[in-house]
C-alpha cells in the first residue's frame, strides 16, 4: 500500500514519459545514487571499493552495452570482450600519444574507436541473424584479440606486451593507474556509470529505442513502417560497442591497471552475456542487477564456505559455481526471460497491494 501507482495522475505528457514515472521509484534511484556517491566510499574498506564496487560498476557498463544490442535490438553478440579490448587498447594509445588530453576524453575516445569497430562487425547483421550472427561476432572476438596481441604498435612496442595504465588526474586527483586511491577511482568510474545509465535510459524510451525494439520484435513490419533495418542495427552495434569500449578502457585504467588482452577473452564475453540474461534482456535496471548478481555470486559462495568453515575443497567450490551459473542461466532462459528485473517488478506489484491479497 505504500508503494503505489494508483492515485498518481500525470497532468502532462512530459511527466508521463519521465524516466521514472512513479515518484517513489525516482526517489529510490536518486537515493541509491546519492548513497553510491557519499555512503559507499565512507563505509567501504579498500577491498570492497577496489575489488568489488569498481569492477561491478565497470561490468555494468558493458552489460548495459550488450543489453542495448541483444536485449533491445535482438542481435546476439559474443564479441563483447573484443569491443572492451578495443576500447582499452585505443584509450591506451590515445593517452600515451596525447599526454595532454584530459582522461575522461581519452576514455570517451576509446569508446568511440570501439564503436567504429563495432559498426564494421555489425555489417553482416543485415544478412544474417541469430546463431549465425553470434558466430560472426565470435570471429570478431578472436580476430581482434589476436590483433591486439600480435601487433606491438598497440602497446607502444612495450617489451612485456602488457603495459601499465598511465596515471592521469581529474581536478588534481589521480584517478587511473595503481597509485590512484580506490576512492578516487571509484568515483571516477561511478560518474561514467551514472551518465551512461541515464543516456541508455533516455535512448531506450525515445525514438531510437523504439526502432531497436521494433527490429527485434518484427523486422518485416518495422521495415514497412519505414524503419531502415541496416541503420537501426548498425546504430545498436555502434552504441553498444561504445559502452563496451568505455567499460574496457575503465577496466584497464581504473581496475587492473594494465592493458592486457587476457582480461577481455571469450570468458569475459560470456560473463557479460550471463549478466544480461540473468539481469533481464531489454532492461536498463536488469543490466545492473545482473552485473551485481553474477559478480557477487562466486564471492558470496566463497564467503559462505569460509565463514561456516565448511570442509569443501576450492575446486569443488568452483564446480559448484559453474553448476549454479548453468542452473541459473537455464532457469532464466526458460522460466523468466526478463530476468531479475522482471522479478523485481513482480515484487513491486505485490508491494503495491500489500498487505491486502488483492
Amino acid at each position, binding site marked *: 500500500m505504500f508503494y503505489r501507482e494508483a492515485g498518481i495522475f500525470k497532468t*502532462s*505528457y*512530459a511527466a*508521463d*514519459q519521465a*524516466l521514472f514515472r512513479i515518484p517513489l521509484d525516482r526517489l529510490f534511484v536518486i537515493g541509491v545514487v546519492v548513497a553510491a556517491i557519499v555512503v559507499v566510499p565512507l563505509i567501504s574498506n579498500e577491498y570492497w571499493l577496489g575489488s568489488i564496487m569498481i569492477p561491478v560498476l565497470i561490468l555494468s557498463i558493458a552489460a548495459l552495452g550488450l543489453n542495448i544490442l541483444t536485449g533491445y535490438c535482438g542481435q546476439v553478440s559474443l564479441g563483447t570482450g573484443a569491443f572492451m579490448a578495443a576500447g582499452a587498447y585505443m584509450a591506451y594509445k590515445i593517452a600515451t600519444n596525447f599526454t595532454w588530453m584530459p582522461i575522461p576524453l581519452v576514455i570517451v575516445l576509446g569508446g568511440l574507436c570501439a564503436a567504429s569497430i563495432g559498426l564494421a562487425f555489425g555489417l553482416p547483421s543485415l544478412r544474417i541473424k541469430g546463431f549465425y550472427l553470434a558466430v560472426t561476432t565470435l570471429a570478431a572476438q578472436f580476430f581482434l584479440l589476436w590483433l591486439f596481441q600480435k601487433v606491438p604498435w598497440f602497446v607502444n612496442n612495450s617489451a612485456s606486451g602488457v603495459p601499465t595504465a598511465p596515471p592521469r588526474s581529474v581536478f588534481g586527483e589521480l584517478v587511473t593507474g595503481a597509485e590512484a586511491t580506490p576512492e578516487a577511482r571509484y568515483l571516477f568510474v561511478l560518474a561514467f556509470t551514472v551518465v551512461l545509465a541515464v*543516456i541508455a535510459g*533516455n*535512448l531506450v*524510451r*525515445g*525514438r*531510437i529505442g*523504439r*526502432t531497436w*525494439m*521494433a527490429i*527485434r*520484435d*518484427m523486422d*518485416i*513490419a*518495422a*521495415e*514497412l*513502417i*519505414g*524503419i*531502415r533495418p541496416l541503420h537501426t542495427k548498425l*546504430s545498436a552495434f555502434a552504441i553498444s560497442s561504445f559502452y563496451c569500449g568505455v567499460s574496457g578502457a575503465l577496466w584497464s585504467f581504473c581496475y587492473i591497471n594494465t592493458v592486457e588482452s587476457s582480461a577481455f577473452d571469450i570468458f569475459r564475453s560470456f560473463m557479460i552475456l550471463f549478466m544480461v540474461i540473468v539481469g533481464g534482456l*531489454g532492461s536498463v535496471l536488469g543490466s545492473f542487477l545482473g552485473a551485481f548478481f553474477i559478480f557477487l555470486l562466486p564471492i558470496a559462495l566463497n564467503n559462505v564456505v569460509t565463514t561456516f568453515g565448511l570442509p569443501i575443497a576450492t575446486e569443488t567450490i568452483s564446480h559448484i559455481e559453474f553448476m549454479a551459473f548453468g542452473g541459473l542461466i537455464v532457469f532464466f532462459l526458460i522460466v523468466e526471460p526478463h530476468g531479475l528485473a522482471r522479478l523485481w517488478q513482480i515484487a513491486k506489484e505485490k508491494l503495491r497491494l500489500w498487505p491486502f491479497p488483492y
Partner: protein
Amino acid sequence: MAEAENVRAEPSAQTRVFGEPVLTLENIELGFGGVKAIDNVSFEVRKGEVLAIIGPNGAGKSSMLNCINGFYKPQSGSITFKGRKLPGMDPHFAAANGVARTFQNIALFRGMSTLDNLMTGRVLKMNRNFLWQALYWGPAQREEIEHRAYVEKVIDFLEIQAIRRTPVGRLPYGLQKRVELGRALAMEPEILLLDEPMAGMNVEEKQDMSRFVLEVNEEFGTTIVLIEHDMGVVMDISDRVVVLDYGRKIADGTPDEVRANQHVIDAYLGVAHD
C-alpha cells in the same frame, strides 16, 4: 455538390464520386517458382474511396498488398504513385509517402506496449538527432510530446486508453488487431492497406472495426484498400470491389455490379476452371 451530399446520406451510398487515381497498378505479374500468385492484374485506387479486394483463398490478395507497399517486387508491370511510375515500390518510399498497412497475421511489436507500438508509427515523422535523444531534453523532448499528443488522439479514437501500457503480446486477438490499426493510423496515412482486419472477430468486434474504418475514411479522407472475406461487411462498407481468382482479376466495379457478375458467382460457387 448538394446532390453528392444527398447521395451520401442514402443508405446505399455506393455512388459516391471520387477523385483521380492515387495509385495505378498496371499489368502486375508476380510468381513464386512455379506458382503464379498474380497474373497480369491492373486496377487503380482512387482518392478517398474504400476499395475492397476479395477472392477465394490463395487468390493473390495479400500478395497484391505486398506489391503495393513494396514488400514484394513484381516481376513485371508498373505501379504509378505520386507522379512516379515505378517497376516496384520501395518499402521506405511507400511508408514515407503515406502508405500504411496492417497484416493478415498480426505483425505487432509484441514486446512493446500499445503506446510504444503506436509511437513507432511516428518514426518517420521524428527527426531529432541522436545526441538530443541521448539527453532527452529540449527539442527531443518537445518532439516526443508533440507526437505523443497525436498518438493519444488515435488511442482515444480507437477507444484503447485502458491498454496503453500493456505489452501487446498479452492482449487478446481482437484488441491486437485494433492496436495494429492504431499503429497504421499513427502514420497519418493517405492510403491505408488492411489485410483482413476483421478475420477471426465476433460480430460486435466486426461492427466496431467497420465503424473505425468508415470513420477514418470519412473524417480524414484516407483512401482505404481492404481485403475481407465477410461478404456482408464488404458489401456494406466498400465503394468499389476488385475480385481476384487464381491470381487474375475477374471483376472490378461497385458492390452491386460485382454481386451480379457471372465470373464472380462461378468463382465463389467453385465452378471448375477450364
